[in-house]
């Protein structure tokens, strides 16, 4: 199932709405890396609230996504990692390394807004 990507001012917001296959995750990564150029976006938010399992493949793909977006000059924030998912990631030994995370969409947007050069005329 493809993940819908919403363009909101300078940002792209991808909201995962159900469990994703590996192919869906790779497609999301590639779509965001492409669209960040198309829309000249400064930031990307990936909302993983609905993701019930973050295994080694999912975390690696999100890490790759964040790094690829940064190579394109924008920043990624992963939001909505659920408590049980966070617990499983720690137990499994998964790290997102230096990928920025925030509690939810609101916090993620607030983080991006504070970045210099990301300002805009409001929503």
């Amino acid at each position, binding site marked *: 199932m493809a993940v819908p990507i919403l363009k909101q001012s300078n940002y792209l917001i991808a909201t995962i709405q159900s*469990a*994703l*296959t*590996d*192919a869906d995750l790779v497609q999301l990564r590639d779509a965001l890396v492409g669209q960040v150029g198309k829309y000249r976006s400064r930031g990307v938010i990936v909302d993983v609230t609905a993701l*019930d*399992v*973050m*295994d*080694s*493949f999912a*975390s*690696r793909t999100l890490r790759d996504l964040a790094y690829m977006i940064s190579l394109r000059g924008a920043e990624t924030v992963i939001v909505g990692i659920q*408590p*049980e*998912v966070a*617990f*499983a990631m720690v*137990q*499994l*030994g*998964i790290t997102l390394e230096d990928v920025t995370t925030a509690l939810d969409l609101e916090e993620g947007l607030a983080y991006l807004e504070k970045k210099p050069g990301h300002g805009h005329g409001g929503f």
Partner: protein
Amino acid sequence: MQIRVPVASDGDLVAARREGRVMAERLGFSASEATLVATAISELARNIVNYAGSGEIHIGSNDNGGKHGITVIARDQGPGIEDVKLAMREGYSTSGGLGLGLPGVRRIMDEFDIVSERGRGTVITVTKWKRR
């Protein structure tokens, strides 16, 4: 209680881990523990798809000497793992992954057993016991 999920594509991974979560919750595991079980199944099922092409995941209750738990058996008839010790080492990967797969599964489950024979396939059996 037993369920068998055939695994041959990455869509089957999603089905297998959903079944694992449902079974774990039905057996009385907490949401956190059910997530651990689902995550372990995800790793085991991906191993099958990546290395053997196809196989199956059995998920069932396990009652053993007063202990109650959930057991997951991942079975394939793929090429087998050449060096099980190496595959179990942290950070080792032949697929360009993080190498977290099997060692991670061993860490999040209470029991872990692997039998692999070259040319015959691999059977990995893991169990999580309910805390009393």
